[in-house]
């Protein structure tokens, strides 16, 4: 896999089928419906529970706005990921180009996915910091790999955004 900044986009080339599939799973990973821990993390409280008025108003007025924002970011990423469907050969490496104007939406969607997966599997701080973990042996291990891979992608986007 190679990252490079092109004129108006961030290019990820030589994406093998496994990593391409992980990228395809970003939108699905952002869906927190029915995943209680993930819902709580993505829509965390704006104040202590004793501030009941603030928390109640937030649910009514702010949370719908946040839902719209997060959905919009996910839709942008879903549209960009359609490029991966153009890989004609089943096991061929492919290339993804992220338009520079979509970089913020990608950062947001990647963060949604990372937080939702981490909450779903309840990863410990130790697990999240262990970047040399043994090979994937379970769905949980795959989840941890996803969190780290999406984080790696975030770092690349951030680095290119600040250049």
């Amino acid at each position, binding site marked *: 896999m190679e990252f490079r900044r092109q004129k108006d986009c961030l290019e990820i080339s030589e994406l093998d089928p496994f990593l391409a599939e992980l990228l395809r799973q970003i939108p699905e990973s952002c869906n927190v419906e029915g995943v209680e821990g993930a819902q709580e993390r*993505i*829509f*965390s*409280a*704006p*104040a*202590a529970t004793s*501030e009941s008025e*603030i928390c109640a108003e937030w649910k009514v007025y*702010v949370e719908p*706005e*946040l839902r719209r*924002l997060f959905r919009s970011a996910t839709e942008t990423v879903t549209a960009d990921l359609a490029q991966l469907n153009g890989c004609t050969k089943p096991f061929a490496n492919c290339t993804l180009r992220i338009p520079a104007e979509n970089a913020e939406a990608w*950062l*947001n969607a990647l*963060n*949604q996915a*990372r*937080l939702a997966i*981490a909450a779903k599997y309840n*990863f410990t*701080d130790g697990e*999240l*910091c262990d970047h040399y973990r043994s090979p994937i042996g379970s769905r949980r291990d795959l989840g941890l790999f996803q*969190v780290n891979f999406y*984080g790696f992608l*975030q*770092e690349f986007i*951030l*680095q290119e*955004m*600040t250049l």
Partner: protein
Amino acid sequence: MQSSFGSSVENPVVEQETRAAEELDLPWQVIVHNDPVNLMSYVTMVFQKVFGLTKEKAEKHMLEVHQLGRSILWSGMRERAELYVQQLHGYLLLATLERTN
């Protein structure tokens, strides 16, 4: 005939409104809490964008969050504090507003 001064002092509605106004004037703090998932570089970028901080200052707050568990990013009127917390939640940071003691 009652004096207007006397009636306004005894009117409980006026007193309730005054208290509410005083509560709104109390300073509030915008606090960001530690989160093991959000990247340090991402948190720094968010602080720069939301509060217009320099990279050095944003990194100082980010490290405070990382090492001490929380950092006070801003304090002032409630309405603006709520807006900042909303923006921070838009970036998926763990942020709350608290009354200043």
